[in-house]
């Protein structure tokens, strides 16, 4: 698979805000003056970004996977979304079946004074049917005729771009693909973590019970940290599984990293007069070891995964604790 095909297929997997963020990141890398348009404080006026001094505008739509069962439904959703965006750019709304002016006060705070869009690119994560073109392009002409054209020139060009077009338009390198794939991976791991069920949590529960015994005055704090550890543990399990499904060679590195984390943390704790102080460094140790193999691909996720691996080591018992000498754990 060529780099272009790989990037196109990765783009197609992104949806919603992830897709928009990736498109904007791509344009940031290509156009020196590309400007994203944050939706705050009162919406983005239908514009997700602009470049070329405000002459070119961009609207993004990343269909949510699973929301549409047929191609016809995808076509309908895409045309509805982009026609809505175009109406906002042309400052129009429907009253019944009639197009009427609808002020867009935010647009005056976005584009430079006096600047009008000369071309509009509608970027979507699914462009496998040409049937989106007629309704969108026809609507654009209607809107241009009905509009006062304060922010769009009457003859502005409008075109639809899908993942393949966006990929083929400009150079693609491994870093571009990795950035896009990371978004998918991070999203799916976070989603999957919510559905993970921790089996055999008995040892973890008994360790939390020891904590409650030795510090009965800290029960709310213990419950809170137990919940955080379980959440981190689920994240680690989700990361493990997703990595194994999609990149088995990286999963092997994860297995080796896990062993190195335990060895290093254990060595520090056993060799110290203040073993628990060394445990406090475990998160940093895990992040450092995992970062060696994974920071390039998974960046922001590594901190969470490191915490997850420590939680997993606590939960699955390599790292544990006993009550003080003389105290009995019931």
């Amino acid at each position, binding site marked *: 698979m060529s780099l272009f095909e790989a990037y196109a297929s990765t783009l*197609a997997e992104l949806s919603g805000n992830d897709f928009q963020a990736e498109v904007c990141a791509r344009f940031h890398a290509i156009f020196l003056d590309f400007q994203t348009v944050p939706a705050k404080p009162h919406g983005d006026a239908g514009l997700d970004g602009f470049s070329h001094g405000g002459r070119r505008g961009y609207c993004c739509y990343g269909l949510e996977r699973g929301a549409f069962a047929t191609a016809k439904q995808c076509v309908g959703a895409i045309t509805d979304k982009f026609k809505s965006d175009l109406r906002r750019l042309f400052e129009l709304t429907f009253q019944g079946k009639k197009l009427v002016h609808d002020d867009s006060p935010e647009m005056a705070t976005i584009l430079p004074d006096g600047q009008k869009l000369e071309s509009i690119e509608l970027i979507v994560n699914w462009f496998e049917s040409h049937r989106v073109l007629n309704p969108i392009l026809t609507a654009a002409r209607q809107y241009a005729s009905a509009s006062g054209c304060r922010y769009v020139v009457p003859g502005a060009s409008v075109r639809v771009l899908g993942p393949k077009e966006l990929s083929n338009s400009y150079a693609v390198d491994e870093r571009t693909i990795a950035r896009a794939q990371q978004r998918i991976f991070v999203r799916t791991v976070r989603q999957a973590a919510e559905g993970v069920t921790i089996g055999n949590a008995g040892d973890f529960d008994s360790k939390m019970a020891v904590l409650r015994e030795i510090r009965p005055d800290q029960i709310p704090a213990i419950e*809170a940290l137990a919940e955080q550890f379980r959440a*981190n543990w689920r994240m680690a399990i989700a990361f493990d599984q997703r990595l194994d499904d999609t990149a*088995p*060679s990286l999963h092997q590195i994860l297995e080796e990293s896990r062993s190195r984390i335990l060895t290093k943390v254990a060595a520090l704790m056993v060799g110290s007069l203040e073993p628990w102080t060394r445990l*406090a460094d475990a998160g940093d140790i895990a992040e450092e070891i995992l970062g060696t193999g994974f920071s390039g691909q998974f960046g922001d996720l590594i901190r969470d995964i490191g915490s997850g691996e420590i939680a997993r080591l606590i939960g699955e*018992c390599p790292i544990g604790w006993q009550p003080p000498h003389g105290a009995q754990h019931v």
Partner: protein
Amino acid sequence: MSSSTALEKLVRILESGGARPDINADRLAPSAIYDLDYRVAITACAFEIHSKPYILEKRRIRTSHLKLLQFAAIRPWLVPVIRQWSQSLGYAQQSMFSPHQLRRGFLGDRVHDTVVAFLVARGVFEQVDGHLVSGPSAGVLGRLYFTAAENSYFSTSVRALDELREIRITNSMLEGW
């Protein structure tokens, strides 16, 4: 509570409570995915279920086909992904419904490559033109498969392999497309 806060809180409680560390590195169990016996057993089941008759009572399977099959057998949750992938072939409009990263995961399964190399070295397989053909010692594959079937060992994986019989696997899929 953030992750770092939770760990700091735990450390404070353990210190102030006088808890004794209990480190047991033996409890860190490696994943079964890296266990040679397990991988050989799954490979045997995949071969016995999916291989086709060849010359002189031998059987054979495409090397890449076996790689995909054993990968999915160990991860049965991928069978619906493969089914959807197969059904979407030739229908570009359905392309977005099939995740690409999950499709291509099996291509990076180096552990399987090592297992196959081991089995070839032991005479269980012979490599012939992109296929794995049963070798002089291939009898072990059948024994492993029938033992697993009789005792319901690896039943989830065997069920996944049976389901995969109903799914059309094409050459383009075996290249990860």
